[in-house]
């Protein structure tokens, strides 16, 4: 029994999960239980917890892609802009502003938007793996240009759509649960199966740990990176669809604004090292839920959501420091010298 407990605490998602439960519990106590209340209306579940899951779905998708990018030792700060592009394309297609021959087909709109995300991701991957530009600069190009491209697609306007099928992406219910949860579940399961049932996960971790050794062992490091950035772009595109379906339109200025930091933070909270190596997608999902529940609670308290940015920035720095060898050494040196002083 004891050893099983030990094994459980060693699991990467254990501590993040405990933090999540603690946050929920505090919320529950503060709200006097209202936090946990769920209502069933028309066979659909409603409640704070459901809100967190639904609103957190975008972040969970982004965190899934970002986990793998960070695991290879890279970064992708263009995800917010890719969300904007995907939303802009999907809404414009549904609205018939572009590709009107498709007759506003929602399926076509979704497919084209995801394809655009794949292209964006592949572009990032190409710059990083083949041309060997620092990931931050490579993805920053798209971060800024991407929002511009989205603006050009919508001609600088906020495009609203009128399509129940499209709204379903965010607001729909299946079996009483919000539809975005099924999207997240589908992709997370898919990618976890892919990383576990093929050797892809091993190759990613190996690449992140030691790219040179990996190359000597026959791993095509460049291709691994290309695939991962592409995947991250696709996840961002789907998140963009959920977002735009939620606001029933495309707002290129604000879609996915500053969400890059949340995605990176979710991964960091999940315990995946920002320097690359071991990764755990479930842990990052939990990390994303932690962030979402903090955001939701802060919002419920009536504080501006931007304020949490400040806190999040501080947490990222703290986690980075905790992972820094030099910082650990400095702290250890400080502690021992203090001990020596007190002993003397």
């Amino acid at each position, binding site marked *: 029994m004891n050893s099983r407990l030990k094994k459980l605490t060693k699991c990467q998602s254990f501590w993040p999960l405990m933090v999540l439960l603690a946050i929920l519990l505090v919320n529950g106590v503060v709200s006097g239980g209202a936090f946990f209340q769920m209502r069933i209306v028309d066979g659909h579940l409603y409640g704070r917890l459901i809100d967190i899951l639904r609103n957190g779905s975008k972040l969970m998708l982004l965190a899934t892609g970002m986990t793998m990018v960070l695991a290879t030792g890279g970064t992708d700060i263009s995800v917010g802009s890719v969300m904007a592009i995907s939303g802009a394309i999907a809404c414009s297609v549904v609205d018939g502003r572009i590709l009107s021959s498709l007759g506003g087909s929602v399926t076509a709109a979704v497919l084209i938007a995801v394809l655009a995300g794949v292209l964006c991701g592949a572009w990032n991957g190409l710059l990083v793996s083949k041309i060997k530009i620092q990931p931050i600069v490579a993805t920053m190009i798209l971060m800024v240009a991407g929002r511009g491209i989205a603006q050009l697609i919508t001609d600088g306007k906020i495009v609203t759509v009128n399509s129940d099928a499209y709204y379903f992406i965010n607001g729909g219910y299946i079996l009483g649960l919000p539809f975005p949860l099924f999207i997240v579940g589908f992709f997370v399961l898919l990618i976890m199966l892919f990383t576990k*049932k*093929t*050797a*892809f996960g*091993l*190759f990613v*971790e*190996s690449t992140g*740990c*030691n790219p*040179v*050794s*990996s*190359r*000597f*062992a*026959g*791993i*095509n490091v460049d291709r691994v990176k290309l695939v991962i950035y592409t995947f991250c772009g696709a996840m961002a595109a789907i998140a963009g669809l959920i977002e735009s379906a939620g606001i029933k339109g495309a707002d290129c200025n604000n879609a996915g604004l500053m969400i890059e930091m949340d995605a990176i933070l979710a991964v960091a909270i999940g315990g995946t090292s920002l320097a690359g*190596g*071991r990764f755990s997608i479930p842990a990052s999902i939990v990390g994303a839920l932690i962030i979402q529940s903090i955001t939701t609670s802060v919002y419920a308290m009536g504080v501006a959501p931007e304020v949490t940015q400040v806190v999040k920035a501080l947490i990222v720095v703290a986690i980075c420091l905790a992972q820094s060898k030099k910082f650990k050494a400095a702290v250890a040196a400080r502690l021992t010298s203090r001990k020596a002083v007190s002993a003397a």
Partner: protein
Amino acid sequence: MDAEKLLLRMEHISKRFPAVVALDDVEFSLRAGEIHALLGENGAGKSTLIKVLTGVEQRDSGTVWLEGKEIFPRTPQEAQETGISTVYQEVNLCPNLSVAENIYIGREPRRAGRIDWKTINRKAAELLGRFNLNIDVTQNLDAYSVAVQQMVAIARAVDISARVLILDEPTSSLTAVEVQKLFEIMRMLKSQGMGIIFVTHFLDQVYEVTDTITVLRNGEYVGTYATAELPRVQLVGKMIGKEYAELEGSAAAKGGEERMGEVLVELRGAGSASIPDVNLEIRRGEVLGLSGLLGSGRSETARLIFGVDRMERGEVDVRGRKTEVRGTLAAIRSGFAFCPENRKTEGIVGDLTIRENIVLALQTKRGMLRAISRAEAEKIADEYIEKLAIKTPSQDQLIRNLSGGNQQKVILARWLATNPDLLMLDEPTRGIDIGTKAEIQKIVIQLAEEGMALIFISSEIDEMLRCCNRMAVLRDKVKVAELSGEEISEAAIMNLIAGGAQNEQPA
């Protein structure tokens, strides 16, 4: 030696790193006006000794005197201030700055508070003029050849009043003409009473320019000799751990011709950016040794075959068919395997488990989509942990927690698991305890007996003799001879490596 004439004296220097003893009770003396070669193979301790002297590392014990005063440099700056300057093989200057600036940066002459570029350029040109180097000092450093960069580095070092000048493998990337120019400068500095420590692995150069030789081996002091009185073959013997007298009549390498099979790989004029031209045949069932000093082209040959360095010319036949090895994965799929020289940076993937490290190459060989199941991976890992006697509590251990010898065995297991036809081992036993060393050597011979082709690279001649039944000797990136059967002897190899006129090699 007259004690008061000594410029530098190091006694009982010891330095331990967590896993290894890098220097064990080493001594070293340098007189003013002397060029002193510091020699030794990989892991001999030369670079650690230099790091201790220049303050990059601190000695654990021992004493260093400079002109009779005890010194304890903690940083390269401190060493430089006391008069010890170093010029490295990789020029430690800034390629993006002008030649003149590289000489004066950090101590620029100023006028009215601002850097006085006119004076800098004038003084730099004057200084380099004294070295017979008349170049445009306002050009960026990287506009010039490595040789010029090296001389600029020396000029900077000398100008900061060096009493002791350390040249750490300065000639590795120079042409013959450039080397002569460097030697002129060394002789000039020597005549001015400076003491020069010269680290190199080119024996010709040692005999051409140095007065004295100190040899280190395995972190221990072997001895100091007058260059003129030490024959080349004896010097090589001291470097690789065999006295020449012992060699006379030493047993020839074992046979094994009977088990040699068909030609597996043949290189014809193959070359990469780092080695010009390789002609080599490798047969099934043989252990082919690549012999030569560090930098002679032995690792470069292996890297070329394994597709790590791109092949720029020549041809490769594998199993009689002309093949293009594009990258490491193609090499693995051709049945090649390669344990690289730098275990830490090129071999292990530190944060993965032993099991993952073992199956990694097999997995890439099979392809990403055909994953090795957990059960199969465990079986493979167990099999090799037992076969190679890898000491670990479990296969879930991270490989970085293992000792060097066990890490090496895991890498070996990684390659054996791919069931290769050709296994290349580059310094597989360096920094490994004696017991494991012997085990690895035994495995090598056994594999050849089972019909595998092996390429074995080592700085230790003993080990090479024990394992190899054919030997290619390399010098300065060129194969100078191939020996097999009775021809293989320490004396013959050492003669070839030394490349000297003395003790003509046997036919």
